[in-house]
């Protein structure tokens, strides 16, 4: 079913019906207008020799190996750059063509070492395929092995420029150039080794290279794969499709799938290369239990582990009440696994104390979009951005956090779409090769609502509302109230300038651009949601889009860029304490009865505890037991001191994970998890796209995560009878209207499906709210700006905001255990030169970072990326303690933490903070408690 992906058609497919009839070597074929002769030949099953063409790139016409003869035309045109014409008669094999091609090959081969038998690309080299039996010559050129994942052996390069074009036209990084001319020309990464260049290690050039010049080191080491399985990346919310190329149960390489609808053959450094953690020696492969967190772990059977956990949960419930235990589902696990954890909590624990890490990232998206539009999800597919005329990127840094989407966006910007960036930091998109934002609204952290209101003010008071759209599609009374509110002088850019720090003229120009430039699309991230007014900003964004008629068709929309791979899916699957799968409130009797009937138990009609509430309840002794699957709350959640106290107070903490993460150091039961390579299931990406995850190797610890949950449920006396995750999906489809039409068979057939998928939309829904909003009429919400309580003052004069970078992923448990540490071996504190100078800080100094809740230390990175008054860090390494400093302020509607705004002071110091010293000591103690195992570096480094 995926065999097409392995065929290279030479040039990209053209849209539209196959209306042009041509004859290739006597074979009749119909192709869409604009198709190349080369592609038409491939469609007819006739391969034209080629080197510089590949179907992920526009044709270039440099190698001249693909020449053909066309009746009625003079000469021998290159088939990759010649477009079909109706009735064309093409010959791909004639004596004249053979002679021409032989000449071309001789030129290439004379400059290429033919050590094919010892070359890593042997058997999979296009040059080799083309060359046949030509003569052998050698020349020496240096090999660049600086990148940890691929090498560049210039001696094998035929200077076809595919790599340069891939870097420019697919990735958009422009790291490679051709130096020199003619036979002296060579490929160069800006005159530097790859690791010192602008290269971001996306792998597009490696993929495009027809020879072994650019080659994955894993292939050089392990040899060519012998089978491949299509699966989905387990890192970010882009949800790229990959072919896992295997030798037995060993991954040789991950190759982005050209048929993958989210990524169309592109990838980033994480999904493409950073999969080695799956077999890292730190993996825990046996269940373990202990009575106290200061006891050594004891390896036990699965049976003993789940029996012990179940007896503890039941003991706690008997002593403290049914609501004293709960569970956390994982946005990194599959839909099926997430569904089972919430089912376990609701059906076997008998309460609704289930939450997911989306609590701390995109819960305001769920609330805000459901309130305004009626569905807790983004409105578009990724492809839509290719039709946008103006794009607002707010509180998101896609080149780091959603790289493959960023590549698409960049290509659209290079082609002429306008960009507005709303961000306290000067992110890469603000200015990078061939891209410059029309406006960068560099607002103060915590003033998003003020900013959105002032943009809305301009649109309303300058009569730029799409009145016809609003009249037809939105609630009139709510719109009238909103219009009156945003028109108030206090919401004007001039009045808000003092709050946001953004010059009024810039805000006005940006609002006009968004309202008038054609299709306007908004993309946003955690810089929008992780605030005390996160939900309000999401509603404000939806207001803006509705007011300008920018929802309900291609090229527009409101698009949350989800953090982890399955954030959308974990929310869809009922991971919230107040909602069943499909976002239906637990108090809704009809829904609850549906689940009661299917699950055979009575269900609670009251909302349960959210993650921060669980911590608070743990400290007041009404919550004492927790099952955490695939999350590291001790590392990722704010106010570490508070989280540590809450976890320490639990009487039974069960952690189900692939590594002994920070949370597991507080656990009493450890259930060894399975990586995405070890199980079947599905992930749902930021565009609501459900894609298959396919098992390529057996689970190292004997059970896929869904099997672990089934075992725990059974030990609690609740039977779940599934033989395969497909049966779990069948149950989800039966019980969830937006998933009614989803099945593994259909996923196999279509490759992926965007929900809603049901009778009304049997193949899914790429664009939502096309005819009407899901809630009926769109609802404008009044979004009053309320300043956060987290204010700067003499003690804490700077604002800290946090984020992540390209090569590391969230808490880093996976990426820290790969060669990605070559790019980011520690978290640093970005500080503006002015703020650094007044504090006597120079680049590389160790500095203390203090807030009202805690203190840690980091090395300073002096940079103008941040504005004066703002400092920034990442949280990929636990010992950095970024969350020791963040507070437990949270979004008013959802309790999503206000990670993005913490008042801090920074000072130069000589030694680590007290928390870091304690962390180190506790870490060592916990390592001693592990059974003897192969030596590995502390804290999960390589």
């Amino acid at each position, binding site marked *: 079913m995926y065999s097409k992906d392995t065929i290279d058609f030479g040039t990209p497919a053209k849209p539209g019906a196959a209306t042009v009839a041509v004859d290739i070597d006597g074979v009749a074929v119909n192709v869409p207008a604009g198709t190349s002769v080369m592609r038409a030949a491939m469609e007819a099953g006739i391969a034209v020799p080629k080197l510089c063409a590949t179907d992920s790139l526009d044709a270039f016409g440099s190698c001249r190996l693909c020449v053909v003869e066309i009746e009625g035309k003079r000469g021998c045109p290159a088939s990759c750059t010649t477009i079909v014409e109706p009735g064309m008669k093409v010959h791909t094999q004639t004596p004249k063509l053979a002679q021409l091609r032989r000449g071309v090959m001789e030129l290439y081969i004379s400059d290429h070492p033919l050590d094919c038998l010892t070359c890593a690309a042997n058997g999979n080299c296009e040059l080799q395929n083309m060359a046949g039996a030509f003569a052998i010559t050698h020349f020496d050129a240096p090999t660049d092995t600086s990148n940890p994942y691929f090498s560049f052996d210039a001696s094998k390069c035929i200077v076809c420029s595919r790599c340069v074009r891939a870097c420019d036209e697919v990735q958009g990084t422009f790291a490679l150039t051709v130096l020199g001319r003619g036979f002296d020309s060579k490929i160069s990464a800006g005159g530097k080794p790859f690791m010192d260049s602008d290269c971001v290690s996306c792998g597009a050039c490696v993929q495009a290279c027809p020879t072994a010049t650019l080659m994955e080191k894993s292939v050089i080491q392990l040899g060519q794969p012998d089978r491949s399985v299509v699966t989905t990346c387990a890192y970010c919310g882009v949800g790229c499709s990959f072919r896992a190329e295997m030798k037995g149960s060993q991954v040789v390489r991950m190759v982005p799938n050209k048929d993958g609808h989210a990524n169309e053959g592109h990838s980033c450094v994480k999904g493409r290369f950073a999969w080695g953690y799956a077999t890292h020696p730190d993996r825990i492969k046996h269940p373990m239990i202990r009575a106290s967190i200061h006891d050594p772990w004891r390896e036990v059977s699965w049976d003993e582990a789940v029996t012990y956990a179940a007896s503890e949960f039941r003991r706690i419930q008997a002593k403290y009440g049914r*609501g004293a235990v709960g569970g956390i589902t994982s946005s990194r696990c599959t839909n099926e696994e997430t569904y089972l954890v919430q089912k376990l909590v609701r059906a076997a624990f008998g309460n609704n104390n289930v939450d997911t890490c989306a609590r701390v990232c995109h819960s305001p998206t769920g609330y805000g979009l459901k309130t305004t539009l009626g569905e807790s999800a983004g409105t578009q597919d990724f492809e839509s951005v290719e039709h946008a005329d103006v794009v607002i990127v707010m509180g998101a840094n896609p080149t780091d956090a959603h790289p493959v989407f960023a590549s698409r966006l960049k290509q659209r910007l290079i082609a002429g779409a306008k960009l507005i960036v709303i961000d306290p930091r000067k992110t890469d998109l603000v200015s990078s090769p061939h891209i410059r934002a029309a406006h960068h609204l560099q607002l103060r952290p915590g003033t998003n609502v003020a900013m959105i209101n002032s943009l809305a003010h301009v649109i309303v008071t300058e009569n730029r509302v799409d009145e016809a759209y609003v009249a037809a599609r939105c609630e009139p009374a709510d719109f009238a109230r909103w219009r009156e509110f945003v028109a108030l002088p206090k919401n004007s850019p001039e009045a808000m300038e003092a709050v946001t720090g953004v010059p009024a003229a810039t805000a006005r120009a940006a609002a006009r651009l968004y309202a008038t430039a054609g299709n306007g699309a908004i993309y946003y991230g955690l810089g929008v949601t992780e605030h005390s007014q996160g939900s309000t900003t999401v509603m404000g964004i939806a207001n803006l889009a509705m007011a300008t008629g920018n929802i309900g068709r291609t090229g527009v929309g409101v698009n949350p860029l989800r953090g982890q791979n399955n954030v959308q899916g974990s929310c869809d699957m009922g991971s919230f*304490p*107040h909602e069943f799968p499909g976002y239906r*409130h637990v108090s809704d009797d009809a829904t609850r009865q549906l689940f009661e009937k299917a699950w055979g138990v009575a269900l609670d009609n*009251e909302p349960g*505890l959210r993650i921060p*509430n669980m911590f608070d309840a743990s400290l007041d002794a009404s919550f004492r037991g927790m099952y955490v699957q695939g999350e590291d709350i001790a590392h990722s959640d704010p106010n570490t001191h508070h989280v540590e106290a809450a976890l320490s107070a639990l009487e039974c903490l069960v952690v189900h994970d692939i590594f002994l993460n920070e949370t597991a150091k507080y656990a009493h039961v450890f259930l060894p998890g399975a990586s995405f390579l070890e199980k079947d299931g599905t992930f749902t990406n930021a565009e609501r796209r459900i894609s298959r995850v396919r098992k390529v190797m057996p689970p190292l610890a004997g059970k896929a995560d869904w099997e672990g949950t089934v075992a725990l449920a059974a030990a609690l006396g609740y039977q779940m009878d599934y033989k395969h995750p497909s049966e779990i999906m069948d149950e989800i489809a039966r019980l969830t209207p937006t998933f009614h039409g989803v099945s593994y068979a259909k996923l196999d057939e279509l490759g992926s499906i965007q929900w809603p998928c049901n009778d009304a939309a049997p193949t899914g829904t790429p664009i939502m709210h096309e005819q009407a909003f899901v809630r009926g009429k769109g609802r404008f919400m009044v979004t009053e700006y309320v300043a956060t*309580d987290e204010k700067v003052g003499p003690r804490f004069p700077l604002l800290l905001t946090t984020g992540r970078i390209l090569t590391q992923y969230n808490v880093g448990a996976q990426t820290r255990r790969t060669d990605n540490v070559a790019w980011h071996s520690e978290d640093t504190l970005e500080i503006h030169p002015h703020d650094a100078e007044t504090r006597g800080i120079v680049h590389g100094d160790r500095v203390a970072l203090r807030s009202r809740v805690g203190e840690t230390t980091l090395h300073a990175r002096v940079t103008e990326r941040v504005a004066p008054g703002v400092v920034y860090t990442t949280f990929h390494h636990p010992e950095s303690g970024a969350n020791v400093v963040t507070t437990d302020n949270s979004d*008013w*509607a959802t309790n999503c933490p206000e990670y993005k705004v913490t008042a801090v002071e920074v000072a130069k110091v000589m030694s680590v903070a007290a928390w870091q010293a304690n962390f180190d000591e506790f870490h060592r103690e916990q390592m001693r408690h592990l059974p003897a195992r192969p030596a590995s570096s502390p804290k999960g480094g390589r």
Partner: protein
Amino acid sequence: MDAGKLIKMANDIGRFFAAPAAAGPARDQALFGIADHIKRFWDPRMRSAILAALDAGHAQALDEPVAAALLAHRTLLTPVAKA
């Protein structure tokens, strides 16, 4: 549950719903909005705790519309005892 934290959370909710509403039917709507949000999103023990805080004389720490919402909708917010 930490009463101070619950009071802050309730006040944050109040500032969204009560923002544009000074008096009249809009105020009734705002008070219901506050109570309904708490009912739909807060675990029963949290609701009991904030009502207890109100009874224990913490009303002055609550913003006026929030205290009014809790009083007006006490029945809605009071958890039903379960077996």
